[in-house]
């Protein structure tokens, strides 16, 4: 069994980690540095199977694993691609207690929880189960061999033990240095450490020479340690020749997870709770091997006036590398204590506690779905180019936008408008509710009739529009924009609750499909579909069309004779296919959103969100007619009364281009100029074949108190005109 280290196969023994295998073969994963074998230091990092920054001490060796050393004089390369990598799965686990760490105290905590009849789970690093963070919930996220584990527990026990303090002296970057525990593990694995000198607490069960005095430096040759130098109390130096140096400099609790779990039901047990040993303030050496920060750097930054733990970290970058302060934190604290006479806390503990890839952390995530109407398959079969709009997939066009346009203007066409927000509101207080919500006089809408309405917020700004349709004295059908449906539901429910009104609210957006039948031959098509008595303009009836029970609303957004057929969503396909079939001789073809945007623009109908902004008052939109200020109350009334007194600054106006070639349309969102000054923004623009000119809606700022009559767009002249541009008398829609 072999692993490959920088193209060289090396054998490993069962149970070896990659690091132990390398050391067994006389290889070192990095240039050097004291190895801890506990996952705390950055001195065994390498690229394993294409993933860099892997602690080789934490990975069990498997045949064929490929290890590459990080470059000595720089950082690893970014991978070219990772698409070949298998997807990582995430599993949720719910329990009473999760114990992180399965050493002595962790096993005890797990046994105690189980004895108390609790459902408990233990995470064991030795089995490759690494807790990467504790989040609100509490939620413990762990990386395991089988994928990501999201553990939702009532209580978290941190039993992560303590890390060994690393040496910071000249020469601590040499190879051949180990912590006591590391040396014990290697000896147990059968490695021969050669002539061993121990500093501080000696390792158990290893024959070694004990160096007396304080550690002063390590000496080496060819990057490997050759001697330990200590200093006696009298100041004299002692030299201990060795092949391996082992340090026992004290313990520092692995408390990052506990600190991360501050204010959550998290407790620590065992060594993770111990008081931190504080090493003596070092005189020389590298305190942060990740970022290459020396004691001299700390001295300098202190003199520069950086004296808070966080400022020292940010200015030297100590603690910002792979081990996230594992090596340097004890030394930073002892340095700042020596300098400033106060013991400063370690910097904030932040996830992730153990490292994982973006692919791993992303496990279990999904994209927000884009909703599809019941007719989605029909559109795609007809070759539609689909577009995301308002949270839905909608047909943008079916390949020929102008053919669709002319079908509406001259023959008949259908469009899937199932995405419209649809709601039934009923109950004794329904009229009261709607009168308060809407700026129109709802009481004047008669049974079987509909009206176009704006929705205002408390600041008097328009946030949606739609129709109010009166079904009976105690029931109304409301419609909203496609993108505004869910917000509108919250809005209506919230106010009904706030006012304590007796109403029932039923959102129908997903339950009802809707198909708009539009064009001068719409009546003819409906007659062929079995409907001889269609409703009058702005009326609505229930009837069967092409065998499908529908509520038929006569209204018009395209400017042509139009009927909106609301029907059970299960029968959308039947109705759609039926209409297309029956309309063949009439020249029917479906139209998409792109065509609709042109048709409604010719009529000057606004699209909330495209032609409006967050500060669009009815006055700015030139929709004063939709607001009945002689009503006693509606949401936004007070704000409208107030803002109406402020001089008007801008208005949504109709514009047409002067003397431009057919087909030209300026950029929507482009800038409008007036005599070299900024004058506004184009919100909608299209060339109108029916009118033979280019028409626009746009925000125009008043210049010297007046709306300019002539402006410049894309270096061309545009003239302000009244809307609608097309069929000003609305004779076609009312036909």
């Amino acid at each position, binding site marked *: 069994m072999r692993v490959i280290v920088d193209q060289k196969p090396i054998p490993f023994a069962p149970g070896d980690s990659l690091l132990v295998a390398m050391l067994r073969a006389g290889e070192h994963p990095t240039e050097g540095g004291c190895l801890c074998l506990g996952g705390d230091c950055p001195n065994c990092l390498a690229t394993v199977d294409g*993933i*860099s*920054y*892997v602690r080789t001490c934490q990975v069990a060796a498997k045949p064929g694993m490929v290890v590459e050393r990080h*470059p000595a004089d*720089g*950082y*690893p*390369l*970014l*991978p*070219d*691609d*990772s*698409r070949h*990598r298998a997807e990582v799965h995430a599993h949720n686990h719910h329990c009473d207690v999760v114990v992180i760490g399965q050493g002595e105290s962790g096993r005890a905590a797990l046994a105690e929880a189980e004895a108390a009849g609790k459902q408990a789970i233990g995470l064991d690093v030795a089995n490759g189960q690494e807790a990467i*963070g504790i*989040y*609100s919930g509490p939620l413990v*996220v762990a990386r395991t061999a089988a994928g990501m584990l999201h553990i939702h527990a009532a209580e978290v026990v941190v039993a992560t033990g303590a890390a060994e303090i690393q040496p910071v002296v000249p020469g601590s970057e040499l190879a051949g240095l180990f912590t006591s525990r590391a040396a014990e593990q290697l000896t147990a694995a059968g490695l021969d450490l050669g002539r061993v000198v121990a500093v501080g607490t000696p390792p158990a069960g290893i024959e070694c020479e004990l160096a007396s005095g304080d550690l002063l430096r390590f000496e080496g040759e060819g990057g490997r340690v050759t001697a330990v130098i200590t200093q006696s109390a009298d100041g004299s130096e002692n030299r201990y020749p060795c092949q391996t140096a082992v340090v026992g400099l004290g313990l520092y609790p692995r408390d990052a997870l506990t600190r991360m779990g501050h204010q959550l039901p998290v407790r620590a047990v065992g060594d993770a709770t111990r008081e931190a040993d504080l090493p003596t303030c070092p005189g020389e050496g590298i305190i942060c091997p990740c*970022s290459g*920060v020396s004691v001299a750097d700390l001295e300098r*930054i202190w003199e*520069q*006036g950086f004296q808070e733990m*966080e*400022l020292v970290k940010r*200015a030297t*970058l100590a603690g*910002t590398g*792979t081990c*996230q302060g594992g090596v340097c934190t004890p030394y930073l604290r002892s340095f700042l204590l020596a300098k400033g006479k106060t013991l400063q806390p370690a910097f*904030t503990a*932040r*996830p*992730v506690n153990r*490292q994982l*890839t*973006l*692919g791993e*952390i*992303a*496990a*279990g995530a999904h*994209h927000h779905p884009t909703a599809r109407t019941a007719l989605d398959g029909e559109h795609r079969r007809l070759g539609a180019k689909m*577009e*995301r*709009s308002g949270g839905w997939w909608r047909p*943008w066009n079916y390949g020929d936008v102008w053919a669709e346009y002319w079908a509406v203007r001259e023959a008949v066409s259908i469009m899937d408008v199932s995405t419209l927000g649809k709601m039934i509101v009923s109950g004794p207080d329904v009229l009261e509710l709607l009168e308060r919500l809407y700026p129109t006089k709802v009481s004047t809408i008669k049974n079987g009739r509909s009206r176009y309405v704006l929705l205002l917020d408390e600041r008097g700004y328009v946030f949606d529009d739609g129709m109010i349709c009166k079904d009976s004295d105690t029931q109304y059908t409301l419609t909203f924009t496609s993108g505004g449906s869910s917000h509108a539901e919250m809005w209506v429910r919230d106010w009904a609750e706030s006012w304590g009104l007796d109403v029932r609210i039923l959102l129908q957006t997903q339950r009802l499909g809707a198909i708009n039948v539009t064009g001068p031959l719409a009546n003819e098509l409906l007659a062929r579909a079995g409907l001889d008595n269609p409703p009058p303009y702005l009326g609505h009836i229930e009837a069967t069309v092409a065998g499908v029970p529908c509520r038929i609303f006569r209204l018009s957004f395209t400017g042509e004779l139009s009927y909106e057929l609301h029907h059970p969503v299960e029968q959308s396909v039947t109705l759609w296919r039926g209409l297309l079939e029956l309309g063949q001789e009439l020249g029917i073809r479906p139209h998409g959103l792109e065509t609709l945007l042109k048709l409604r623009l010719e009529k000057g109908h606004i699209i909330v969100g495209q032609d409006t*902004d*967050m*500060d669009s008052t009815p006055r700015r939109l030139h929709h004063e007619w939709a607001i009945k200020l002689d009503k006693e109350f509606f949401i936004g009334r007070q704000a409208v009364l107030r*803002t109406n007194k*402020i001089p008007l600054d801008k208005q949504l106006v109709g514009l047409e281009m002067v003397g431009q070639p057919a087909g030209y349309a300026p*950029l*929507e*969102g482009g*800038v409008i100029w007036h005599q070299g000054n*900024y004058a506004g*923004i184009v919100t909608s623009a299209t060339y109108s074949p029916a009118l033979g000119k280019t028409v626009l809606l746009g925000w125009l700022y008043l210049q010297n108190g007046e709306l300019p009559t002539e402006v410049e767009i894309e270096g061309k002249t545009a003239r302000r005109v009244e809307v609608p541009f097309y069929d000003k008398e609305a004779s076609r829609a009312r036909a």
Partner: protein
Amino acid sequence: MNEFQEKLVHFTWPEPKKSYDVVIVGGGGHGLAAAYYLATRHGITNVAVLERNYIGGGNSGRNTTIIRANYGIPEAVRFYQHSLELYQTLEAETGRWIMHQEKGILWMAHSEIGMQQQKARAAINRAFGAKTEFLTPEEILKVCPEIDLTGGGVWPVVGGSYNTEAATARHDRVNWALAEGAMMRGVHVHQKTAVTGLLMEGNRVTGVQTDKGPISAGIVMSAVGGHVTSLAAMAGLRLPIRTHPLQAFVTNHYARTFHPIVASTNLLFYVSQTARGEMLMGAEIDPQPSYNYRSDHHFLQSCAFRATTLLPFLRDLRVLRQWTGVCDMSPDYSPIMGKTSVDGFYITTGWGTWGFKAIPASGEQMAQLIATGETPEMIAPFALSRFAEDRLMADRGSAGTH
């Protein structure tokens, strides 16, 4: 040794005085910049900056360091372009290395309507002085060959706007260069000094109460991030601000080969590579208002997922650290700068997700206001009074947060 250690900046920490001409509350980028420009442009140095923790410890030291001017309304494009230009010369002016790097920022669109919006953004940017171009997918690949134009088969990239002068700078170093520049001209900066109240005489602010005693001042300027509504309430002002957490994360260090800043207008994440080689990623603000700095798993999981959808090479990078800051969101997604209805109390707030890029311009303009008593033309549209006057600076699409 690493070449990124701070070696030039020297701080001085004098004892507080009982009185200053100007007290600035908040020792983040905006407060330090105002002090810096007061000292360097107007010779006003009897100034104290009060910081409750350590300088640059709030959002000025937690942001994702992006400088861009691709805003959506003329007033904002002008302001942020000016700020971007001040950043371009800040190193030369202060003699300090702020690691300013011009990178360009790409905002990708994923639909016809989205493409139209990016074309419009480029147009309005160019009209008011910012260098933004519209790019086709082929041109996008030239800027960032790592992008999967199919968007994982889910979010195809159909175009994008590219603000060529967009840059990054090291946030800490910006704060320090401004702090030192102010200090060396006599400005006092007091850390670990929390403002607990405002001293008022009638409708005029006359100083601040701190946890270390009262300090009187001719003018008090709030450059507070996070708890700004609490501070303003001390002056009897209600601010239209809601504070939301905003999170970010970095990977380990890799050789620097990823040049631009890349963002998606639908997936709402952004990615850049730092001068030290970490891949730095963020996304939209958390939906619920909070002052909480706790990081959460959903953000990390979701942001990583979205970023790897368009940049699949990120999948194998190892995450190093995540953190959280807070954003003061205004109703119209634009900042609030200038005088208030309380005499002697000036304010710069509402910095949402766009505060770092504005530091020099906000500092310069607020300093001019303090020095002259007249609101500079550039920031006049951003006055607090706009909300009462129905003059919103509506710029939602530019925040990169929704």
